[in-house]
């Protein structure tokens, strides 16, 4: 990922590209370089816009469903059950029970709950499952990888710390991940936090490997030697100087991991081990909608498409970042 750009042919390296003078006048920060490459990728930009919209929607949904009573996703309106999208609320509802604007944009489910409200509540839960799980896996991965990369040469008895930690990573990699998640989630008491933790604990291995490789390369760089020579404390060298430089590949895999975590949560919900009521997630709205797939297909298609769009957006942004951060590709496209 951070391999230095090596001019392939001497002749090509000598050609000075047009606009080089401006580039020399104001050197771009690495962030600006990545952003410039990223902005050109139309798919990735679309993904980014979708994600920003989703975050806004999730926050808005959280506020609306918490504070606005008629929008409560748990409100049961039995006279209005299984109404298709865009249908109006019936007059049989009592005062104060009618949904906002008297209609259900996404229809209602088998208990007459407003699917739009449930989807909005679910967007916050699904997103936080993804983000918390990935934060956990990033934390473990950076700790294990950083420790192995920085202190790897030290010995604990006959074996070095590096080989100890990396063999442990290999062991965890050999577990059949989805099967393990399923087992643990089925045995633990059902709770949304357990699901986040289990997904996080079983997906840190990639991050650990990236960080270790980056750290081993960074240790040999001059700025680290300079920092050591200056007598900076080790934690400062690690967290202030090395971690930010090792983050590029981690950021890419983290973005894609969020997508993977959301998919895993929905798969767990599908198998009946997911997040339990009263939390609505897209996964369990989808899993519940399965029973009504012939009578009320919107209960199935709406959450399914929502998961598809969001996971797709995360994947596109991740791949766009990967391309933008790859100096080889950046040279080729510009």
């Amino acid at each position: 990922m951070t391999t230095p750009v090596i001019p392939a042919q001497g002749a090509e390296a000598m050609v000075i590209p047009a606009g080089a003078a401006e580039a020399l006048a104001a050197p771009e920060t690495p962030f600006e370089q990545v952003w410039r490459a990223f902005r050109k990728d139309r798919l990735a930009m679309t993904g980014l816009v979708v994600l920003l919209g989703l975050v806004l929607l999730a926050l808005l949904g959280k506020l609306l469903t918490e504070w606005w009573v008629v929008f409560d996703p748990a409100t049961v309106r039995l006279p209005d059950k299984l109404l298709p999208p865009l249908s109006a609320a019936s007059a049989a509802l009592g005062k104060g029970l009618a949904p906002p604007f008297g209609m259900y944009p996404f229809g209602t489910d088998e208990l007459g709950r407003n699917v739009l409200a449930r989807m909005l509540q679910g967007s916050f839960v699904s997103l936080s499952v993804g983000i918390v799980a990935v934060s956990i896996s990033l934390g473990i991965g950076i700790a294990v990888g950083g420790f192995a990369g920085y202190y790897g040469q030290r010995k604990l008895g006959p074996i070095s710390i590096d080989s100890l930690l990396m063999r442990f990573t290999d062991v965890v990699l050999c577990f059949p991940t989805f099967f393990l998640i399923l087992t643990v989630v089925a045995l633990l008491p059902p709770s949304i936090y357990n699901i986040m933790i289990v997904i996080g604990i079983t997906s840190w291995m990639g991050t650990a490997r990236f960080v270790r490789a980056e750290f081993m390369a960074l240790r040999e760089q001059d700025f680290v030697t300079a920092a050591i020579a200056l007598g900076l404390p080790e934690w400062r060298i690690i967290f202030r100087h090395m971690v930010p430089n090792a983050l590029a590949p981690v950021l890419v895999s983290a973005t894609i991991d969020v997508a993977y975590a959301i998919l895993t949560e929905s798969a767990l919900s599908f198998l009946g081990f997911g997040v339990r009521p009263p939390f609505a997630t897209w996964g369990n709205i989808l899993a519940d909608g399965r029973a009504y797939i012939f009578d009320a297909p919107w209960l199935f298609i709406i959450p399914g498409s929502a998961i598809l769009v969001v996971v797709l957006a995360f994947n596109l942004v991740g791949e766009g970042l990967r391309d933008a951060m790859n100096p080889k590709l950046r040279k080729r496209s510009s």
Partner: protein
Amino acid sequence: MWRFLVRTVAQRLVLLLVISVISHLVIHLAPGEPSAVDPMNPMMKAADIARIRQSFHLDDPIYLQYLHWMRDLLSGELRSFRDGLPVLPRIWSRFLNSLPLFLCTTLIVWTASFPTGIQAALRRGSLYDRSTTFIAYTLISVPGFFLSYLLILWVVRTFHLPVIGLHTFGTENARGVVRVMDRVWHLVIPSIMAALTGIAVLSRYVRSQMLEVLGQDYVRTARAKGLDEDHVVYGHALRNALLPFVTMFGFLLPGLISGSVIFEQIFAWPGLGLLGYEAILTRDFPMILTLNFMAAALTLFGILISDILYALVDPRIRLE
């Protein structure tokens, strides 16, 4: 070569032992006992629960339970908690059900993704390339069960054909041809659904690998010699691009057990994934542990195979 083999196999065996200890610990230390599967059942008296716990060795210290499990597994005497039947014959019969699905899926993945990926690399930046890229990302992002349900819905409504299970109910006494065709039909849809994600991932990988190779000097040399384009692409570029894929054969193996839980559940396919799912529901510890153990063993075996294959196809690599 032989020294390498002996040493890696020994290392892998130690790794396998560690894995078995950890998975045993995870499963036994997590809350939720086999005796607590049905807490509301009025027929379960405290004395019965104690008797069950006694006969499953659940009151023994955990290392003894581990030794019991290992001894029973190695002697083939391991019995399921659920019905007391031996575990290994049942795993074998379910394996025979999973195998056709697995082979068919793998075949579809590998035959579909290579042409797609190679074409995308050759026409880099074209409409074809961009649309396959987008479709691949969509297929990676769609929850497999969502797509499968939509497909089932469509097939059942349009063709009025059953798609669930190993064969159509009531065809047991039909003629041989009918039975075979029925089995094949029931195999096709689950394997296509299970293959879609694989095709998406692998074709992207083929594309980037081909792009890498097509930029190499020897491809330019081959073109400069005046070889025709097909020969350059398939004879020179593809052969070199194939190297990393040899290793992927090894990583396919564990998919036999854990890769198919969702699809076997959707299509009611009585294979290993569904067996594991049922075992988890009933907290059938011997079954869960044995399947877990086998999946880990398959993973390690797969890595070994890919190491050896890689050394066989790439003369630059020496196994030391």
